[in-house]
């Protein structure tokens, strides 16, 4: 089980309280698809992903980004119980979606960059370290049920 200090929990919740989940989720997913274009392989049914402009404006990308980050919010509410919280999602990503867990790490790093651009100087080194830890454990929990 992952240990979270009081300071880490504070850094997580104070950042999260200021995040617009819909905007941030949409941006993170769009950037994933733009910066690492091979990740588009999971989204054949999303329509037009032919250019960065198309991706950013794509309503399915926006909607799915919001869904993903909303789920992230669940993780934050259950920091002491992440594996259980994500057990079903993990099975889904393995058995139905067939997503290489490396993609969770890629998305996590993209999210960090989106947060950095949003919070600028408030995104201190300690804040970044805490959030890197968080995206890391979320990625781990999502990969946990893979077989």
């Amino acid at each position, binding site marked *: 089980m992952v240990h979270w200090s009081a300071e880490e929990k504070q850094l997580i919740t104070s950042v999260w309280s200021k995040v617009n989940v819909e905007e941030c989720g949409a941006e993170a997913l*769009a*950037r994933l698809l*733009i*910066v690492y274009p091979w990740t588009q392989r999971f989204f054949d049914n999303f329509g037009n992903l032919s250019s*960065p402009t198309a*991706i*950013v404006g794509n309503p399915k990308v926006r909607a799915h980004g919001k869904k993903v980050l909303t789920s992230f919010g669940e993780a934050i509410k259950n920091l002491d119980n992440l594996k259980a919280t994500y057990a079903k999602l993990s099975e889904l990503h393995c058995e139905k979606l067939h997503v290489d867990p490396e993609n969770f790490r890629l998305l996590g*790093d993209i999210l*960090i*960059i*989106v947060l*950095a*651009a*949003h*919070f*600028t*100087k408030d*995104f201190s*080194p*300690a804040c*970044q*370290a805490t959030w*890197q830890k968080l995206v890391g454990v979320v990625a781990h929990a999502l990969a946990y049920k893979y077989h």
Partner: protein
Amino acid sequence: MVLSGNDKTNVKNVFTKIGGHAEDYGTETLERMFTTYPQTKTYFPHFDLTHGSAQVKAHGKKVAGALVEAANHIDDIAGALSKLSDLHAQKLRVDPVNFKLLGHCFLVVVAIHHPTLLTPEVHASLDKFMCAVGNVLTAKYR
């Protein structure tokens, strides 16, 4: 992985905008890397790694200088960083995985100081550039 004409333009533009801040960004990149990925500190047992360290500042300046050099010779990064590539292969032998960590922290620093500059396209170009630099520095490892 190849840098397109657009990538090169984007990267050169970023470094132009960064200008004289490059050294500070180099230092901040290292500080964030050491804080976020403590295993990277193992390459610097001889350094004072506390906040504000003069050694980290000097090293940040070196790292930034190399990135600027690579951007200024973006058509031949391997040529521009050839000596650094030798150094990393023969003496420093930093595990290749760590260049990704440094590259990521550099992107975070750029995002913090120039959020509007880092559009998705520029983000992609800069990420590719940092990968290219890492590849050059590890090219002679074996």
